[in-house]
């Protein structure tokens, strides 16, 4: 029993077994029940079957072998009480009709041999109505013969009638048995299906972390074991996710610490470079100090970019997009760079409209993009002495007259700054186009979907 509960296969085999046996068993079983109940109540006194009647008549004939006319009449009278619709009569050896029941039976008084043969011919066969049986009285018809006629309609037993009346019950009962079988098997599969669907739903629905929740294990059968395995898997995935989060956090921390460990000595170097700078140095010495300072600044930028790039590519760079006024951001950003370009005697062209233009972007990221691009111009395109920033038709344009991006700049890096810009633009769904040749570089930045503009 326990095994049965634990195995869907066993349950299924049981149902199939039941199904293959249901036909013979149910037919036999039903028949037994059916006939037994219906045959009850049949009286044994009265016979209905033709053969039984014939035997009964022959027995009667035998018992009346030596009987007198009175005795025959008496016997016939008794039989007539049982078979009320029957015709009974006796024809003696001389061919005289002697006793008739009922009295007024229209039957010939005198039988000739041909009459007898004609009578036999008329009343032969299974369908001849009324049913007729003839028995000789005494050996070889010494005392004539007796005739028993019963209308066929009177030969149906009450049980036959009843059976006919309730015949439709049998297929209904059979149908009911089949329906029960179909119901049981449907229920069996319905429950399996329900549990499978439940499991499927549990797999599809996941909480915020993207891991499905475990399911309640209802039984110990195959599906139950599947549910157990599923729960185990969920647990493993969850553990893996936590481990991954932990590792990511560790990596983030490691990067921050690495940055710290690199910058701390750099700060000391910078401080001492500054101190050297204040000493009285030869011209060459001053040049070296200047170079040192420049390289420190460069390394600082490199570390910053490296950290940012690592965070960006692992999706760990904090990203809080909102509706921002890019005109204002461009203005603020350029304000910090203005003095630097001013010192380098750049020609600066600014065409920024006096209205707000809203983009969906992270302000920190957008500032970072502008900083990187302006820094690029400062670092690589300073020879052109020209910078233009324009915002026209919802598009931000940056132009310089440097040697172009393809030429080798004297202070070239690995281009990580531009990679960061590219990654950030992509993440914020901004379109970035660059036209560059030896006469300068033109960049345009615009929003891919234009749904957030000028809404205020």
């Amino acid at each position, binding site marked *: 029993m326990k095994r049965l509960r634990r195995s869907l296969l066993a349950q299924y085999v049981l149902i199939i077994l039941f199904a293959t046996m249901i036909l013979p068993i149910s037919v036999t079983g039903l028949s037994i029940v059916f006939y037994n109940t219906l045959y009850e109540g049949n009286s044994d006194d009265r016979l209905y079957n033709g053969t039984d009647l014939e035997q009964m008549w022959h027995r009667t004939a035998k018992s009346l072998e030596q009987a007198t006319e009175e005795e025959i009449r008496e016997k016939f009278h008794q039989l007539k009480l049982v078979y009320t619709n029957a015709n009974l009569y006796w024809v003696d050896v001389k061919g005289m009709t002697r006793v008739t029941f009922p009295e007024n039976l229209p039957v010939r008084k005198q039988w000739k041999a041909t009459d007898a043969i004609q009578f036999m011919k008329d009343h032969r066969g299974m369908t001849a109505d009324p049913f007729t049986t003839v028995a000789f009285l005494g050996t070889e018809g010494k005392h004539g013969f007796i005739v028993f006629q019963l209308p066929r309609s009177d030969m149906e037993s009450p049980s036959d009638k009843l059976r006919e009346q309730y015949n439709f019950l049998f297929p209904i009962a059979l149908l009911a048995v089949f329906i029960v079988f179909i119901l049981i098997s449907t229920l069996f599969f319905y429950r399996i299906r329900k549990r499978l669907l439940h499991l499927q739903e549990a797999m599809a629905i996941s909480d915020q972390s993207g891991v499905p929740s475990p399911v309640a294990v209802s039984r110990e059968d195959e599906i139950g074991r599947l549910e157990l395995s599923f729960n185990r898997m969920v647990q493993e995935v969850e553990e893996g996710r936590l481990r991954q989060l932990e590792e990511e956090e560790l990596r*983030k921390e490691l*990067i*921050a*610490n690495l*940055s*710290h*460990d*690199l*910058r*701390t000595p*750099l*700060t*000391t*170097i*910078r*401080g*001492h470079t*500054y*101190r050297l700078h204040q000493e009285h140095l030869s011209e060459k010495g001053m040049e070296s100090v200047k170079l040192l*300072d420049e390289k*420190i600044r460069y390394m*600082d930028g490199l*570390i*910053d970019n490296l*950290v*940012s790039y690592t*965070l960006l590519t692992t999706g760990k*760079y*904090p990203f809080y997009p909102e509706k921002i006024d890019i005109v*204002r951001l461009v*203005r*603020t950003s*350029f*304000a*910090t760079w*203005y*003095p630097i370009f001013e010192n380098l005697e750049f020609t600066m062209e*600014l*065409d*920024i409209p*006096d*209205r*707000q233009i809203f983009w969906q972007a992270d302000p*920190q990221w957008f500032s970072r993009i502008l900083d990187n691009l302006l820094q690029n111009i400062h670092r690589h395109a300073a020879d052109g002495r020209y910078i233009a920033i324009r915002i026209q038709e919802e598009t931000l344009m940056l132009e310089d007259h440097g040697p172009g991006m393809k030429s080798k700049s004297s202070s070239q890096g690995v281009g990580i700054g531009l990679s960061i810009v590219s990654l950030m633009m992509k993440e914020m769904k901004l379109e970035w186009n660059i036209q560059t040749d030896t006469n300068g570089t033109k960049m345009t930045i615009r929003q891919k979907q234009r749904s957030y503009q000028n809404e205020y």
Partner: protein
Amino acid sequence: MRTILYIEDDQEIGRFVKDDLEARGFSVRWLLSGEGADEALPEADLVVLDVMLPGLDGFTIGQRLKRKQGDIPILLLSARTAVDDKLAGLQFADDYLTKPFHPDELAARIDVLLRRAGRDLMEEITLDHLRINLKENRILTTAGEEILLTAKQHQIFTYLLRHPNQILTKEQLYEGVWQEPYLEGDKTLHVHIRYLREKIEQDPSQPRIIETIRGIGYRVKQ
């Protein structure tokens, strides 16, 4: 003398910064950790705080100091460039500087912060033909005439003076003075600056004190 409370655990950097700031005329109280910061706070005009410290980190110490004395300017120094740090730091700190910083930049930022907080004891600023006394709110020309400004004009001028050499966009300037969001297209600031220039500039059509940076904003060079 202006006193700076400087919390830094790195000996080399700490020694150097202390020397440098002292050479620039500040009095520096240097602590190796947050311990004793509370006691030193009342005498300080500004706090320079390193983020990575043994024991309590710079964020915790900074927030505690701000709670104790809300008006103390705090400049956060960090060698960790994690953007989270910067965002978290600027929740309470007034400025944020990443290492390796140039000593001049640190000094400049300290100046700006002190001036913004009104803790600058600099007696007088000389600008072109003006002698400005921020403490007494008096502006005199070299000829000795006093220039009287309306309250708003004075606020604008002071705000610009407290951000020396910094280009302030019209949004920054408006929001700094009026303390409400700037509405695009508002000409109020423009009008005020025009009247201010008429009073302080020798030739208002060729302004030399308040410089217009076209398309960006205004600047006062010192």
